[in-house]
């Protein structure tokens, strides 16, 4: 039987305040649907016949249904069959969490994720050992790699069909676990930032004078967002066993100031204090009295002096599809040859 592939597409990513305070892009619903259609064609080209999708009511499903009707009229047999997870639609992150759990239960081989770092984080919190393949459609996209979704679809298809050894197709990733005493338990897949605001509000973080601490699983000078701060100080790859901790201070008080693209279109001065390696499995106690913790770029958890906050780096916490390795393997082994 053909393997099942899951697709989680967040229809509402890329709609926060950064469209106003910066010039962050807006990815229209029709474009999101077109990305999925390209992925679906690639999956079918590899032999995947069944796809399980997260239901939503923001238009993606309608556009895809119309494309399927057009393909049927034109007698084009280019798409796999789509099934939708049966669940109530709330248009909140709950939709992503529930759909991912259902995909795990249904035995999906891989879950393809369309969204930014926040959407990927939500999927990772539920997917367990199922590998994920990220497609960037959000605002801060440090986690999903930027490439044409057709190629991501082909790599997922080849991996799901078992045509690439698992040791090549999939790789382990680091995660940050956040604990606030007994009252909160959460994760981040790229960065944890501590800011002075004591309310979640509009969620995005874009005021450097309020940044205080930063923890990253990896840091890359080519990415955008909070992890870019660490990336411009000391690059740490996704494969390194350690992460990085950076103490941040208001720019006007800092001995060292760094010019950083910390949000799309915003390049500004960040005050830098100590920089340390973060070792896996060693909980770090947060030494800051009160504020909010931003997970992968969005304020999520408020804390104060009464809270005991720890952050722990976890190695090999979840798996991702290694698109580059799969496509290179496909080239060497001639997996795409038709005769």
């Amino acid at each position, binding site marked *: 039987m053909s393997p099942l592939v899951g697709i989680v597409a967040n229809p509402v990513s890329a709609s926060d305040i950064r469209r106003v305070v910066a010039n962050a892009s807006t990815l229209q*619903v029709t474009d999101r649907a077109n990305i999925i259609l390209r992925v679906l064609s690639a999956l079918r080209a590899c032999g995947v016949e069944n796809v399980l999708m997260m239901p939503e009511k923001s238009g993606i499903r309608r556009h895809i249904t119309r494309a399927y009707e057009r393909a049927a009229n034109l007698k084009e047999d280019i798409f796999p069959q789509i099934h939708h997870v049966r669940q109530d639609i709330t248009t909140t992150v709950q939709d992503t969490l529930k759909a991912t759990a259902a995909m795990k239960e249904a035995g999906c081989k891989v879950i393809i994720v369309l969204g930014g770092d926040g959407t990927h984080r939500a999927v990772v919190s539920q997917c367990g050992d199922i590998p994920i393949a990220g497609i960037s459609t959000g605002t801060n996209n440090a986690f999903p790699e930027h490439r044409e979704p057709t190629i991501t679809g082909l790599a997922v298809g080849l991996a799901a069909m078992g045509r690439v050894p698992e040791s090549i197709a999939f790789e382990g990733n680091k995660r940050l676990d956040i604990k606030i005493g007994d009252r909160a338990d959460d994760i981040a897949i790229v960065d944890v930032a501590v800011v002075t605001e004591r309310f979640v509000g509009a969620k995005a973080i874009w005021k450097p004078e309020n940044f205080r601490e930063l923890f990253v699983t990896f840091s890359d000078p080519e990415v955008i967002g909070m992890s870019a701060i660490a990336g411009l100080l000391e690059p740490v790859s996704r494969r390194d066993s350690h992460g990085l901790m950076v103490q941040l201070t208001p720019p006007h008080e800092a001995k060292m100031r760094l010019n950083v693209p910390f949000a799309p279109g915003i390049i500004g001065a960040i005050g830098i204090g100590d920089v340390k390696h973060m070792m896996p499995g060693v909980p770090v106690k947060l030494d800051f009295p009160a504020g909010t913790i931003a997970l992968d770029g969005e304020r999520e958890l408020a804390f104060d002096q009464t809270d005991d906050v720890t952050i722990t780096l976890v190695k090999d916490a979840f798996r991702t599809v290694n698109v580059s390795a799969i496509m290179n393997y496909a080239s060497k082994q001639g997996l795409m040859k038709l005769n």
Partner: protein
Amino acid sequence: MSNNPFPLPKEQLLEAYTKMKTIREFEERLHVEFAKGDIPGFVHLYAGEEASGTGIMMHLEDKDRIASTHRGHGHCIAKGVEVEGMMAEIYGKVTGSCRGKGGSMHIADLSKGMMGANGILGAGAPLICGAALASKYRGDGGVGITFFGDGASNQGTVLESMNLAAVWNLPVIFVVENNGYAESTSVDYAVAVDSYIDRAAGFGIPGVTVDGTDFFAVYEAAGEIIKRAREGGGPAFLECKMVRFFGHFEGDAQTYRAKGENELPQNLPFEGHESRRYLGR
């Protein structure tokens, strides 16, 4: 570190809380009084949507103009219109804000920058473009806010106004209070583009979506948008997502809604929040 961990000083937090509480009590009282049959015409209640109007209006001065909707009581209160005059207006009394000639859907107070509730769907958008053009011409730093619902968002007047505001770079904020229903028609059925942010992007206008029931989310996003417009950054679009807890109008049987969909939360946006403890309330 400041002793106040919130984005507005204690007095303003109290002012915002008082406004939201006043809106809730005003609407709940109307809900009771309308059932007695003494109020002429229709009333459309804003209870449960307080954080949207209040979070926006906390950034405005009297010189800033707003154009409201048929569901305008909350906007009036948040903009500073006197509540006794509003209630008298709704009863059609000569002591009302408009001498009892307008009723619920036409409360206005130009001295407060409240250009009027409006019974014509989508009619506030062109009005506010005019007010914003006047502010821009005078150079007084005023901004215009037009509120409309998910149903009125489909009116040509709103779309034409978005085009005009973009072309003339007017200090206008288009606020869709998306409460899920245009009277009895679900937004899922009736809005073709599906995303308001996409629709705004079509006019080159940046758009933001926030939880319209979270005061701090609305306050923070509106603050950035209004500051940008005031300083010449042009129009923006704000979608406040919320739930319409009462019927479209008082007396609406709401047979089109799912069970439990419209249970009014007893807590106001601040209640149960850390800021309430900070205020000692």
